[in-house]
């Protein structure tokens, strides 16, 4: 109770509210500018929060998260470019509707759906994470190891089109996490004589490289492409009418629940959430409505936008209750917890309840601000989406460099960042997904530490992995997830991708 009071005192102070507004506005803006993503914004803001109070830092970061997922809808609708990957599905129906002269309607549907999706997933967040954290303190090292295995299998088998590419990406991530000190013995490994590698590759430079630098490189290659924007003249008919609520209620609820559950799955973020909700909504729609999908369907916009915002609350659940990131942005937030000296994992709830409640509270407050800001200021934000990118991109590069440097004031991290920027760009060209890499990179040390701890406690025996009932369940689930796609391919031949 005390922690809830502390957290709300922080959020509802003048400074707290200013941070929420600042974070939400920056998030929406970055989300709306094509080529700049929320992951990038949050990774770049993280170094700035080093000297902030951790609670304030997380108020800012969570507001950015909420803003960024929502802002993508503006450019999806008006520019026919998803501002963030989360809004890909919105582009399919938002743009045609805007093009046919109803941009305000398209935006209005998206904004309200985003708000409702956020609220529904928030309810799941506050009701589920406490109990999960409580039960997970009972998990032993082998249980945790199996859970991480399951998480890696999940992201590889569900996340993308090609399972082999996703697995390659994940195992490269694991590989990148190995150099440095062996947690169990304290010995150095794979440093190739570089003293700077004694500490391994740091999360922040790797993240900034993979998500910001590679994105900037790819933006630069398309710098000369023309962007056309649909003018937004009136913003009157933005709110839902009573009739809208009646038509969309079931859709809203269903899409938000789908978004939340996809969010909970480790490493799979907002884009998969909205794709799933979109296709489910299509299969539930009557034939007349289904025909409109892709040509400006209201149901489709609502499904996509409520689901992608719902993944926020869902993805935060494993982050704060288990220390396992539910999406790429959560992976960055996990790094943020570590940088602020907080230990993610089941004990976060007991040791730093104020942070946990601040995260939960901010998600709600920021969601409300997002709704109001988008309704009132969408016209001005839409204009920001057209900032001159040839000036914006070098400025972002400077930010990336400072961000990596500030981590431990050494240039080595900056070179790491540039290297991983190139790797990320190469991944994109070869259609290898980035998310499994990051999740592998983050979860490998957790898996290794727990496995070593388990083996040291069991004197080298692997048996407890299948003797503990919880661990056994995770192992069986991973096996099933692995075999289903293989079995399908065996029967139907190789999938064409």
């Amino acid at each position, binding site marked *: 109770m005390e922690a809830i009071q502390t957290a709300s005192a922080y959020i509802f102070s003048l400074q707290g509210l200013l941070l929420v507004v600042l974070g939400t506005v920056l998030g929406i803006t970055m989300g709306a500018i094509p080529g700049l993503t929320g992951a990038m914004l949050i990774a770049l803001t993280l*170094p*700035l929060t080093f*000297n902030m109070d951790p609670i304030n830092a997380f108020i800012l970061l969570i507001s950015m998260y909420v803003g960024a997922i929502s802002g993508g809808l503006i450019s999806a609708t008006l520019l026919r470019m998803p501002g963030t990957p989360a809004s890909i599905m919105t582009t399919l129906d938002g743009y045609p509707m805007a093009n046919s002269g109803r941009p305000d309607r398209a935006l209005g549907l998206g904004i309200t759906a985003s708000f409702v999706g956020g609220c529904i997933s928030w309810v799941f967040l506050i009701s589920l994470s406490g109990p999960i954290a409580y039960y997970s303190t009972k998990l*032993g*090292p082998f249980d945790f190891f199996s859970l991480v295995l399951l998480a890696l299998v999940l992201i590889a088998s569900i996340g993308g089109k090609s399972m*082999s590419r996703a*697995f*390659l990406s994940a*195992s*490269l991530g*694991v*590989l990148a996490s*190995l150099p440095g*000190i062996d*947690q*169990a*013995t*304290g*010995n150095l490994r794979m440093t190739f004589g570089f*003293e*700077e590698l*004694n*500490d391994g590759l740091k999360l922040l430079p790797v993240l900034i490289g993979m998500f910001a630098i590679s994105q900037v*490189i790819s933006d*630069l290659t*398309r*710098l*000369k*492409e023309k962007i056309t924007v649909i003018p937004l003249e009136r913003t009157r008919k933005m709110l839902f009418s009573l009739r809208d609520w009646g038509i969309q209620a079931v859709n809203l609820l269903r899409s938000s629940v789908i978004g939340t559950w996809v969010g909970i799955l480790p490493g799979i973020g907002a884009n998969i959430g909205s794709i799933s909700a979109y296709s489910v909504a299509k299969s539930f729609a009557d034939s007349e409505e289904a025909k409109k999908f892709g040509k400006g369907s209201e149901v489709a916009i609502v499904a996509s936008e409520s689901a992608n915002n719902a993944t926020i609350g869902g993805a935060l659940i494993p982050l704060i209750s288990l220390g396992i990131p539910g999406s790429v942005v959560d992976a960055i937030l996990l790094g943020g917890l570590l940088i*602020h*000296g907080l*230990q993610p*994992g*089941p004990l976060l709830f007991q*040791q730093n309840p104020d942070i946990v409640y601040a995260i939960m509270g901010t998600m709600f407050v920021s969601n409300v601000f997002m709704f109001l800001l988008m309704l009132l200021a969408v016209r001005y934000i839409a204009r920001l989406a057209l900032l001159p990118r*040839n000036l914006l*991109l*070098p*400025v972002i*590069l*400077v930010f990336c*460099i*400072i961000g990596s440097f*500030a981590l*431990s*004031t*050494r*240039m080595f991290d*900056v070179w790491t960042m*540039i290297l991983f920027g*190139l790797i990320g760009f190469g991944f994109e060209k070869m*259609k290898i997904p980035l998310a499994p890499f990051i999740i592998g990179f983050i979860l490998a040390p957790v898996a290794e*530490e727990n496995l*070593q*701890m388990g*083996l*040291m*406690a069991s004197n*080298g025996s692997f048996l407890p992995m299948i003797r503990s009932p919880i661990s056994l369940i995770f192992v069986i689930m991973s096996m099933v997830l692995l075999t289903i796609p293989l079995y399908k391919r065996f029967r139907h031949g*190789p999938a064409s991708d």
Partner: protein
Amino acid sequence: MVRNAIIWILIALSAYQYFKAGSNLGNEYPRKPIRVVVPFQPGGGSDTFVRIVQKTINDNKLMPQPLVVVNKPGGGTSIGSGYVKNARPDGYTVLCLHEALMVAKSAGQSPNGPDDFEPAAATGEFGIVLLVSEDSSYQSLEKLMHAAKEQPGTIKFGTNLNTPAHFAAIMLEKTVPGAAFRFVATGGGAHRLAGVMGGHLDVIILSVGEYLRFHQHGLKAIAYLGRERLEAIPDIPTGEELGFPVYGGNLHYWWFPKGTDAAMVNYFAEILGMVMQTDYLVERTRELQILPRIILGQELADRIQDRMKAYGRIEPDNRLELPDFERWTLIFVLVLSAALLIKYGFYRKPVLQKFEGEGLRYDLAFGTLAMTVAYVLLMGMNLLSFVWATITYIVIVGLFLRQFKIRKCRSVVEAALLMSFGLHFVFTQLFSIDLP
């Protein structure tokens, strides 16, 4: 017009700040801020202690220049200690690190040991306690040691390997011939706590400060490894009282790089002596259960030698073969890459698929990247400071991306000036982050 005026006012203000900060240099040591390197994350025990010292010095103006804390965590502690070892011995860089420096050296984990530094002082003693869970069957140190002797290698002892705590545990084993624990590497204090609460570990070591923070979670302290009972935990017997004389007490040592002028080292030690006597420090350290002690001069040199000898006698052995993570990961990567290559060789599909959209401007992307590399090189080799490098970089890249249309250069110059001076101000003054 208003927009332009605002931009130029901002530029002027931050440029003024930049030049003002550069001009106030005096003559006597210290002429500029002294940087304390803490080889741990912000927020941990060492970091908290150093920040209390920092606040004491800066608030009471004990030195003409402020103390600045720089965190260089990682690599055990070898990243931070290596940085200070290689720093210029000009008296403006100092390392604050407890006996982990000696343990890491004698366990062969870090090339940096006490011999690479000039110790100034050891301050702030903190102790460690042995903890079991409340329903554990080892409710006293005697019972624990008895069990460790009767069934050697079965009691699961959670500690990070090759740390002062691990070495203290090995010393404990040696007090009873034939006793042996099964050491389990655990990572941070929170993991250890979860382990003992969930019944996966039998006994753990925490610092007294950590114990006081967490003791309501069903933990029982069975011994305090210090010379005398501690005021804050009067009921907990010392190991010596119980017949197991092991002392795990540790201090924060202040190390200057080898070759630093002795006058500077002594000056800093004197300042630390004053710090230890301020009311603020005494009060804050009492909260954290750190004794505001200070060891100087010959006593310090003796203590360092004594501890190095004690740690040198211990040979930590890794008692269990663990699976080779590196090898398995490498095999996995190779198999998957081979699979992908075979797949595309077999179906004759290009691995590099043609990208959607024509006319991608790789020249712009890689040109900018090359300039970025040059920019980082210039700063990395200390040829240009952040401000001037950034101005040059943004002007050149901005013009390059606009295909050198001079007509549009005004906004480029504005952005360059605003970014360089402005960011310098924001980062160094507001967020106190060092820039190259």
